[in-house]
């Protein structure tokens, strides 16, 4: 209502300003009274509110598509459980020294459902030259609750988060598909506050695409990185193995969305409820992984 009032007096003001622009000119430099939405938009690029650029995504999709289809041969199950509109928090298990799951999930949803996915991740990316900028243009954001709330609740977007954080990719190969702790349940709290469902995704394949043999803790510490692994890829391919993945078959399964029976926009939610939901979702993904692994005949062919 306040807006209506302002719009009304706005037009009055414009009407008046037509007459006396001349005598006001020498006082303070007074702008013409033209407002931001009436002026031509001066933007040059399509980088959005979050640093994501659709043009860059198009380019990335073109480059990544062969890897997605030919190398990992990604197969989805239950993709229809992801809504085509409205916000939702996608939650998945996290694996591979350089996580191969995030690009696959984002690419799959963007090509199949034709809606953007924003990935929340550790801010370590942001302090790396080139990588940080690329990451941001391709839809990556620092995992700050304010970012998640605004995207989910106000802009009804899809947001992808890995609650295990860097503990997922850092774990050694012999603990593959064993889910780590889901942080402090922050993702549940954010979904509750934003009033959106959590949609769990179980991913089989990424663990074998770049298995970690052991960690070089000293090196990680001196470089300020969360972890510095020696991967099987490095042994098999040499320097190429730093970035080169093994062609493991990816299977992604979307599980039943979890809705919360709490009102949105609360400052705080019951710790008990948050942890209960967080544990239930972790268990849901863990059980789905076990089931998928039971049925998997080959790491490379699924």
């Amino acid at each position, binding site marked *: 209502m306040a807006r209506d009032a302002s719009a009304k007096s706005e037009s009055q003001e414009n009407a008046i300003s037509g007459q006396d622009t001349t005598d006001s000119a020498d006082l303070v430099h007074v702008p013409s009274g033209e407002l931001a939405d009436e002026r031509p938009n001066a933007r040059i690029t399509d*980088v959005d509110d979050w640093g994501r650029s659709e043009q860059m995504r198009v380019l990335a999709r073109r480059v990544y598509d062969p890897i997605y289809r030919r190398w990992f041969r990604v197969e989805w199950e239950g993709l229809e459980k992801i809504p085509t509109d409205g916000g939702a928090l996608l939650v998945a298990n996290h694996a591979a020294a350089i996580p191969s799951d995030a690009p696959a999930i984002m690419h799959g949803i963007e090509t199949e459902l034709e809606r953007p996915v924003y990935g929340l991740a550790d801010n370590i990316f942001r302090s790396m030259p080139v990588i940080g900028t690329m990451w941001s243009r391709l839809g990556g954001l620092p995992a700050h609750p304010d970012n998640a709330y605004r995207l989910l609740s106000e802009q009804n977007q899809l947001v992808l988060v890995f609650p295990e954080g860097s503990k997922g990719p850092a774990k050694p190969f012999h603990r593959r598909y064993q889910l780590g702790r889901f942080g402090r349940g922050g993702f549940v709290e954010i979904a509750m506050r934003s009033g959106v469902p959590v949609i769990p995704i179980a991913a089989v394949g990424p663990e074998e695409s770049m298995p970690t043999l052991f960690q070089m803790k000293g090196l990680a510490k001196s470089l300020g990185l969360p972890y510095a692994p020696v991967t099987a890829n490095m042994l098999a391919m040499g320097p190429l193995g730093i970035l080169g993945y093994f062609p493991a078959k990816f299977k992604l399964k979307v599980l039943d969305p979890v809705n919360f029976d709490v009102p949105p*926009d609360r400052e705080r939610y019951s710790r008990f409820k948050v942890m209960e939901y967080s544990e239930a979702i972790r268990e849901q993904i863990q059980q789905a992984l076990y089931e998928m692994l039971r049925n998997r005949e080959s790491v490379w062919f699924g």
Partner: protein
Amino acid sequence: MARKKHSQADVAGEVNQSGETPAGTGTPAESKPVGTPDKKPAKSSDVSAGNHPNKRVLVTGLGSFWGGRVAQALEADPAIEVIVGLDTVEPSVELERTEYVRVDANYSILARIVKATQVDTIVHSFLVVDPTQMSAKAMHEINVIGTMNLFAAASAPGSSVRNVLLKSSTAVYGCAPEDPVWFTEDTPRTRAPHRSIEKNLNAVEGYVGDFAEDNPHVNVTTMRFSNVIGDEIETPLTRVLKLPVVPSLLGFDPRFQFVHEDDVTRAILFALQNRLPGTYNVAGDGLLPWTEVAAICGKRTVPLPPFGTSLMAPGLRALGVDLPDEYMSLLKYGRGVDNRKLKDAGFRYEYTSAQAVQAFIERTRLKDIMAGGTEYKYERDVEQFFRQSPAVIRDSDG
């Protein structure tokens, strides 16, 4: 959504208490709804005259760009009876009825001035947020001690002050990789401040909080301005954007937010007029990658090594690139603030971030061509002579 509505209701409610026209009731034109954007100073007679809650105004930092501009705009409102401006230096803009008082850097005589002039409103635009201007120690003296003295004066027993507006900066949020894309007024910093300017601003805002708590009868507005841009103001960013090529950091393309200098003045006047309570971010819509900022200005960026920037600083300064530490981290991570609280209070921006940059560069280009022309430079003594000397023959109607 619900959260947003809630804050809107809050603002309207509090504005009502301060004796303003109720917001959002679709009031007819004769009363000024809260939702009205600010009047242009020159034609204040039409709606806002006589309705202005502030009659006697004290402006600190009159010599600064903002202080001068705000005083100019206030002068145009006949409802404002007295405008007193303080600074250590002469005002640089043309002022007609503002009374200028020269003070020392930390405003030690402020209490006497407030008592003597019985001002009801203080506009504190004296804070220095550009660290290239002076040493950290001098900045501390002005920002922290000056503000302390200001609040001491305003909270003296029997003080006439009812409205205080503080011009702060979004630098209070800091700049770090873990920052959210948009800071709201309530988002805490992600890292403790370690730079002198951020420490200053945090201390100052701390005093503001204390003052507001101890003096509930005084309305306190804190305005945090984003990167101000315009052809008249000079900041480290406008200086680098005027260079033939624009420096950047290799591999980083952070996003910047700008607010046009005209919107800054308008926002201050809007907040004064409506006695907005609390803290407000003031920044144009949208964030621009630094390369896009340069492109709008029609310039190329020259990447500097992203590490060891403090070692390069002396060499860069010699080349005309004077970017203090704060700006180097902005060139890495950028900063965005949520401007919706002020919009919800009824303010409308004239420029988005991109439009502000565009307007800046267009007027700067024109100015470069017109440079060397016979532009009159304001001299207070000369104007004083014309206005007051018996030697000058004036028209009877003045």
